[in-house]
């Protein structure tokens, strides 16, 4: 399956001459850093989805808002598509360049403009790294809640574009719940403010619409986020199970006990072994599954909750329960989980990370389905799971040097996502659609719904110049791709067995 831009399926792009565009931009913005030689463009040919690479026509690295405005106005006048890129850590190819397009790199907008501890907000340029926000807020006892695994490298602008999540979403929400205001430059080069430093803003909630819109509606140039007081304490329990299903049920039991953990993660045997080999986190390698349950808040409540969760886990049939004795051990427990991806990477030349969400009750069925498909495709799958919020990250192990294996891995990944949709879930919980899951969108949404998405796009970018080909497939692509569309959980031919 090739996911590169295909004009036949994704829409014709206007052909422009590179030298003309370069000359035009140099004339309009003489101080703007423009890269145009192949060796300079090469580092920008892909984002975190590195299996796919395209050299952009030009790379621009603006330093002022005026340069961004000028760039947008000229690109619109010339009919040149603009793909915006933050830190380039995205896993869905949202910042995959276009041969006929300009890659707008926002990394030079990297200043923390303000931290206001009394109003509990931080005002940021889009290139600020996620973790740097919490570091800047730490002296005031505050932090920024969303913590994607890539938080040391990923930028807040990219987080807004993808509506990034992390391991603490169930309790503290996604990016959309933690951003208060954004400044935007439109494709017409206009500036506008969406949201407010107050808790709401008049009019339609365009801030929510822009969050997760993958750079398709405008360019975000400044972000105001809310900061939270750091919890007084955090404790983590690790429970092992001899059966994945029991672990899955234990997750529901914890929630049913009225507890919302700060983090609730599950790993299966393959992921446990990989992580243990890599970071020596003290994981029980004989277990079929482990749960990591972090409880945070006021000390007295956390102690009560730890006792409750321990009882719940015992009742759910855990074969072992360990509470981290101190912060150092807590960090070790988490190190295994946070390094699960690179750990799995050591077991196999390549891996492909999926990002489906499911209603938690469907976990046993989906894990069974994945195991069956893994066998059918002859590719191993390690499962890492944000269990609290139903977000699965199956990691498909493969070797790209073996002919056909990448295609097999992608086909298996696609099947896993379709299974997620079939059980009432989604093809992406936090990584975004980008280019990677453009075909699976046809399984999650029907042509009418896709048409509505295109109508929203047309309200902001009627000429389809902002990141064309990402996020929302054309109806032509869906017709060609022919994915089974599952709507309202009503399958065509329900009499046929499926996984």
């Amino acid at each position, binding site marked *: 399956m090739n996911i590169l831009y295909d004009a036949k399926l994704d829409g014709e792009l206007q052909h422009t001459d590179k030298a003309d565009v370069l000359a035009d931009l140099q004339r309009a913005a003489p101080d703007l850093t423009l890269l145009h030689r192949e060796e300079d463009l090469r580092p920008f040919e892909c984002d975190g989805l590195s299996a796919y690479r395209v050299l952009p026509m030009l790379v621009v690295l603006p330093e002022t808002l005026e340069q961004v405005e000028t760039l947008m106005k000229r690109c619109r006048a010339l009919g040149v598509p603009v793909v915006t890129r933050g830190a380039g850590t995205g896993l869905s190819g949202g910042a995959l360049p276009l041969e006929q397009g300009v890659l707008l790199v926002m990394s030079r907008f990297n200043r923390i403009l303000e931290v206001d501890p009394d109003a509990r907000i931080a005002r940021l340029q889009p290139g600020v790294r996620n973790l740097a926000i919490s570091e800047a807020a730490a002296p005031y006892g505050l932090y920024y809640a969303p913590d994607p695994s890539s938080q040391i490298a990923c930028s807040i602008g990219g987080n807004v574009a993808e509506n990034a999540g992390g391991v603490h979403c169930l309790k503290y929400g996604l990016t959309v719940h933690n951003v208060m205001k954004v400044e935007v430059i439109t494709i017409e080069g206009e500036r506008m403010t969406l949201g407010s430093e107050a808790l709401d803003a008049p009019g339609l909630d365009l801030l929510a619409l822009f969050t997760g819109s993958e750079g398709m509606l405008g360019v975000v140039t400044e972000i105001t986020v809310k900061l939270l007081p750091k919890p007084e304490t955090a404790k983590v329990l690790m429970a092992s199970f001899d059966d994945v299903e029991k672990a899955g049920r234990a997750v*529901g039991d914890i929630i049913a006990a009225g507890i919302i953990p700060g983090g609730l993660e599950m790993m299966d045997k393959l992921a446990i072994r990989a992580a243990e080999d890599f970071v020596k986190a003290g994981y029980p390698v004989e277990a079929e599954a482990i749960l990591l349950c972090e409880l945070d808040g006021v000390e007295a409540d956390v102690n009560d909750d730890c006792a409750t969760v321990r009882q719940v886990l015992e009742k759910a049939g855990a074969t072992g329960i360990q509470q981290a004795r101190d912060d150092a051990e807590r960090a070790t427990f988490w190190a295994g989980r946070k390094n699960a991806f690179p750990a799995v990477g050591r077991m196999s030349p390549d891996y492909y990370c999926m990002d489906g969400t499911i209603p938690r009750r469907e976990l046993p069925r989906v894990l069974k389905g994945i195991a069956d498909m893994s066998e059918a495709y002859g590719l191993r799958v390690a499962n890492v799971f944000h269990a609290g919020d139903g977000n699965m990250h199956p990691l498909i192990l493969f070797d790209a040097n073996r002919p056909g294996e990448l295609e097999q891995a992608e086909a298996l990944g696609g099947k896993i996502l379709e299974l997620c949709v079939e059980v009432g879930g989604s093809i992406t919980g936090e990584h975004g659609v980008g280019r990677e899951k453009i075909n699976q969108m046809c399984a999650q949404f029907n042509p009418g719904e896709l048409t509505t998405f295109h109508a929203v796009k047309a309200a902001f970018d009627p000429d389809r110049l902002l990141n064309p080909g990402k996020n929302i497939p054309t109806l032509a692509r869906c017709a060609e791709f022919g994915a089974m569309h599952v709507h309202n959980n009503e399958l065509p031919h329900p009499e046929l067995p499926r996984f």
Partner: protein
Amino acid sequence: MAQTRPQPTDQDTSDALGEAVRRAAAEGSPLRIVGGDTKAFYGRPVAGETLSTRAHRGITYYDPVELIVSVRSGTPLAELEATLAENGQMLGCEPPHFGTDATVGGMVATGLSGPRRPWAGSVRDFVLGTRVITHQGQQQRFGGEVMKNVAGYDLSRLMVGAQGTLGLITEVSLKVLPRPGASHSLRLEMPLAEAQTKLAEWGRLPMPITAAAWHDQALHLRLEGGPSSVAATRERLGGEDLDAAFWTALREQTLDFFSRDDERALWRLALPHNTPSLALEGVEEADILHDWAGTQRWLRSDLPAAKLREACARAGGHATCLGSREGPGQVEPFMPLEPVVAKYHRNVKAQLDPQGIFNPGRLYAEL
């Protein structure tokens, strides 16, 4: 589905609603969409044929263990809340009803949240998915019954607070929360300035506060969380016990402050955390009730709208008029938008409601 019993009143009338929308679109005749019609005061009057969602009711999915409920829009809010309460759960946004007929659809369309909002989140924050009838009369589904879902544009949250101007909401999926283990409300007599200082200080600490309002020379607080932390904080803060009914009266605007006998306009000021008192000409301390730790202030005043709005905008906020002596339509309820933002509002409306049939003019004259 667990823990819910179908009610005899449950029924799915979405096909009939779709047909009504198709007819309106074909004739180009505007619709005035209503649920319980309890929040008509919030927004501009709509001239159109009334289309009620009230018959379209019932909980279609609820599994307390998943923390998710899906509800048809005509379902009475009270019915939903009672079902959640039976299962030890609640709507985190604590929505106001403004009448026994209030529906879930009205809650989502207006997006109004209660005293818990600054700590737990707004209606929009708890919406996971919506089913909507579009201008073509099609039933479409956005978001869904999962906690995390970033596929496509977030149309579900766009519908929240859009007041029915973009489509007819037939069903919503919401994240729900467990009820707190302990709750205690208290009243601390103190001047406004001291309350503001305290709230700024407490806001930076992990305190179990879920409501804070300054009114009548006292700070009213609600402490919620685990029994241990609520007991310890209660011990530390002291003060007099406060009946929890205060929060309901505040939310439903039945405190004396909101009395209809007061002929001055009622304004809602939304302001950033830690905004000092606005210097407003002729406004006395008693004319303002500070809710949401001071980020939502209710004001009784006949100051000109432009003047008031300018003061709020300077502070980084905005002002909404909930009723003035001149009667509906005399003062724009919602703060006028910046020209570029207004342009994209019109573009979105033109794309999603090209015939202008969905609650035209409810938010702004041109929408």
